[in-house]
């Protein structure tokens, strides 16, 4: 509130006049002899309190009356937002409508987004006939919904088409789009109006002014805040799972990160649902502005893919009150063995011993699904569904296969390389050089049976060997193993290869390397009996199983996949499938082969929180679930913070970003009404006197 004539407030001093008169009047009261004073005294006692109160009220009313009159002559006013004006002349206006997730909040039973659209519609209707208008959605500013047009109906239709989504705000992109639009034949004054909740997370540069200055320095940008100042919100911002072996078989620890984005402490009751069934409920107390973790332990009845949801009580912003987790529990280890020396005689086959060792079931261990193929299969195989690939006695790999393997290992897959007679060191180094822990040196060295190598040093602290029985002679059951041919390795300190097992002459027998998130193990001899008698030793089976399980460890602890809404997720399905069905939170979509890329790629647009699952049908129409490709989609945790962002970073901001213009509204009428009320009260009090 302000005053047009503030010096007139000095008249407020006049408010004490009734008080002074009252005090003087008390002293100057006439003295009268009166015979019936006794009755007067009796009456006075009974009404004194009421009369005193009435007098005080009367005094207060009169003082207020004078004070109000003094305020009136000082001409008070208040600042009030004025209707959005874009001028009467020609002008080009871009409306940026915030359609991000935070605009789905309900305020007074109305979605903020609906409020924003209503305000935008009003502005369009208020535009002069010479004004042009374009409409841009804040979450998808690349393609404006409508270019500059004078057709009001077209602009209103574009506004009607926008729906509040779950995407992120792309303010810079929206301002850039506005700049492009206004740069193309814009007429008259140029203005940008942003209808938004002005949440801080939508402002990349920390303040809208800074962004506007850098993107549209010569355009007036006006932000219209459609959200209330209260930004209280509670959200589940993260969800993860990992195995909890101590809790039992197939037990998982599911952790939910819960945040209290409000100014008051709160106690929330997170709830866990698994496969659409409520299974557990917790309680977490959070101070204002803090986050905490709530852990649930759940033992799954079966292995495989499960859908977990953690939710809290609904608030005005429901989209972040649930979080989705798509996880695999004790899924079988999927292993692809590439046979470089197949043989019709089973015992002469390269993989005869290895396959037998891996297919031997083991109690309380993850089962393995073994598939065998040749090197050609590497090029077309969907490695994304695998956990471990073993290259056994292969000559090398094509560039395409090498790239696929590199991507596979980089994403966390395991690669086991064994050598043999087919191995060509040069081709091997050339094709798989980036994957090898150390490059191979020359040809394989041959030693006589009398001078066969034995195993020497063992890296006992490595996870592979911590679960194997060890003795003073090394790994129990392998001590007498003999190695007749082995490959020597070139030193490559930059690759940080780690020798886990060495021969007794000191040369490495098993070397580990890391590529991206995956691991590569190189065995410098064969896995069949061609170069060694290792496969017939008792320790062979546990060693091979441990090697493969170690390489497949990434999937061991409840693999789960989370994708943020707004992203595009690429999945690769087997090219042999005829049709693919994508099940999203909003429905099912059946796609034929033409919708897939040449290598079976499918780009999934993730626009809604929830579960996304795939299944595929072969040419015969048999459907099979592609569990490993499914994922849960969640809101960006940043969307949960609804604090207001800065509008003006400083007074020197070049871009004229401002909040709605304001005008003076006189309060004289309000005060006049108040004066009338006071006069009425004064009359009432006086009359009762």
């Amino acid at each position, binding site marked *: 509130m302000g005053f047009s004539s503030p010096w007139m407030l000095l008249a407020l001093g006049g408010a004490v006049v009734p008080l002074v008169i009252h005090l003087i009047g*008390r002293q100057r009261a006439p*003295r*009268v002899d009166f015979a019936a004073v*006794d009755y007067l*005294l009796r009456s006075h006692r*009974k*009404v004194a309190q009421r009369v005193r109160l009435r007098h005080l009220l009367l005094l207060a009313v009169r003082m207020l009356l004078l004070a109000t009159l003094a305020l009136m002559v000082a001409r008070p006013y208040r600042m009030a937002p004025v209707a959005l004006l874009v001028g009467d002349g020609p002008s080009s206006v871009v409306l940026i409508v915030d359609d991000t997730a935070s605009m789905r909040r309900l305020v007074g039973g109305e979605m903020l987004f609906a409020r924003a659209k209503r305000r935008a519609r009003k502005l369009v209707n208020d535009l002069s006939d010479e004004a042009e208008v374009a409409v841009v959605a804040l979450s998808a500013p690349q393609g404006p919904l409508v270019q500059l047009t004078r057709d009001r109906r077209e602009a209103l239709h574009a506004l009607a088409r926008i729906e509040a989504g779950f995407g992120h705000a792309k303010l810079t992109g929206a301002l850039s789009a506005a700049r492009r639009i206004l740069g193309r034949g814009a007429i008259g004054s140029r203005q940008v109006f942003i209808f938004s909740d002005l949440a801080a997370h939508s402002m990349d540069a920390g303040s809208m002014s800074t962004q506007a200055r850098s993107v549209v320095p010569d355009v007036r940008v006006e932000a219209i805040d459609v959200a209330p100042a209260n930004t209280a919100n509670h959200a589940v911002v993260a969800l993860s799972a990992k195995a909890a072996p101590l809790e039992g078989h197939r037990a998982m620890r599911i952790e939910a990160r819960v945040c209290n984005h409000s100014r008051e402490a709160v106690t929330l009751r997170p709830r866990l649902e698994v496969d659409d069934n409520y299974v557990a409920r917790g309680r977490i107390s959070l101070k204002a502005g803090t986050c905490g973790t709530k852990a649930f332990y759940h033992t799954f009845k079966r292995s495989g893919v499960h859908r977990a949801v953690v939710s809290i009580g609904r608030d005005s912003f429901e989209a972040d009150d649930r979080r989705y987790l798509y996880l695999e529990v004790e899924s079988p280890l999927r292993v692809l063995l590439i046979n470089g020396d197949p043989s019709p005689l089973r015992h002469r086959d390269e993989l005869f011993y290895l396959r037998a060792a891996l297919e031997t079931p083991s109690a309380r261990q993850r089962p393995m699904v073994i598939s065998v193929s040749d090197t050609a299969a590497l090029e077309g195989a969907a490695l994304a569904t695998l956990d471990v690939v073993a290259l056994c006695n292969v000559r090398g790999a094509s560039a395409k296969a090498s790239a696929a393997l590199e991507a596979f290992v980089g994403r966390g897959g395991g690669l086991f390389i064994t050598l043999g007679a087919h191995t060509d060191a040069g081709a091997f180094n050339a094709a798989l050089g980036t994957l090898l822990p150390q490059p191979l040196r020359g040809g394989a060295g041959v030693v006589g049976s009398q001078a066969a190598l034995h195993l020497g040093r063992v890296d006992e602290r490595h996870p592979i060997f911590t679960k194997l029985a060890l003795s003073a002679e090394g790994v129990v059951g392998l001590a007498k193993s003999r190695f007749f041919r082995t490959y020597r390795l070139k030193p490559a300190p930059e690759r940080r290869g780690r020798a886990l097992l060495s021969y007794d002459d000191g040369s490495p027998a098993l070397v580990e390397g890391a590529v991206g998130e995956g691991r590569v193990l190189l065995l410098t001899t064969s896995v069949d009996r061609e170069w060694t008698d290792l496969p017939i030793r008792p320790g062979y089976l546990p060693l091979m199983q441990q090697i493969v399980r170690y390489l497949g460890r990434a999937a061991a602890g409840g693999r789960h996949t989370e994708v943020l809404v707004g992203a595009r997720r690429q999945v690769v399905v087997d090219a042999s499938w005829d049709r693919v069905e994508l099940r999203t939170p909003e429905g099912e979509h059946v796609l034929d082969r033409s919708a897939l890329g040449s290598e079976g790629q499918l780009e999934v647009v993730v626009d809604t929180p929830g579960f996304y699952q795939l299944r595929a049908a072969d040419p015969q129409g048999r459907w099979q679930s592609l569990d490993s490709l499914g994922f849960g989609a969640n809101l960006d945790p940043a969307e949960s913070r609804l604090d207001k962002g800065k509008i003006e970073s400083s007074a020197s901001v070049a871009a004229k970003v401002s909040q709605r213009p304001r005008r003076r509204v006189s309060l004289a009428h309000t005060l006049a009404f108040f004066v009338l009320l006071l006069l009425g009260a004064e009359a009432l009090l006086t009359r009762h006197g």
Partner: protein
Amino acid sequence: MSAGSYRYFDAETLAKLSGLRLRVQEVVDGAFSGIHRAVHRGSTVEFAEHKEYTPGDDLRRLDWKAYAKFDRFYVREFEAETELRAFLLLDRSASMGYGAPLTKLEYGSVLVGSLASILARQGDRPALMAYAKGVDRYLPPRARSQHLGALLGALEVMSPAGETCLERALTQLSELVGRRSLVVVVSDLFGVEEGALAILRELRARQHRVVVVHLLHRDEIEFPFERLTVFKAMESQRELLVDPPGVRRRYLKELESFCHRVREACQRGRVEYLRVSTSEAVDGVLRHLMDPQHRPSAALEEA
């Protein structure tokens, strides 16, 4: 009681006349020449009424004709023409000094003086008893012409002072009053004790005609004050700062309650009660007092 028909002798008119004697003369000569009749019934030839015989009545006054007609004994009563003894009690306490243009005491003096003059004119014997805390001045009943002069002289020099105690004055009166008499008390009755009212009833029970003239000033009846005022008691040092509009209703209620209490007490003992405002005409009040047909209840209704 309406003063409309007696407007020539209202307080304002009387105030223009200087001196009590002149005022009394005006009232008596102007309004009461020859209207008075003795109110004391006696054994003369002028028949008054029948009364049922009770043992002790004079057998000579038995009405045998009535006995023959009704088979019951009735005694004939006759108007008395003997001299009436009238005791006029006037309150001269300080509270009676309130009022303008006539104080209550001045008004009461005119009233008492006029009444005494009328009584003296027809040969009755008025007595004056002026009292405050006690009896200050007492002139016993006399029929001599000088007596009226003395009585008016005493009224003329009377001034208000002191507290009031009606009970003490009535106690003294009850010792003085002999055969049936007229007792008139003129007072504002402020601070009247229950004992005083009891004596009044006792006097009435002794066959005296007792009339209480409750004299109040218009200010006391209407409380017309508006401004914040310090009211000072007239019979004590008490002071009270009061906003009159705030207490008016409650005060009037208290006063009415007081008047009602006194009137009730009088009615219980068949004591005539007459509330009079000093703004009313004196002759009207006198007519009420002198009219033997006048019933106290009627006066009360009008008051």
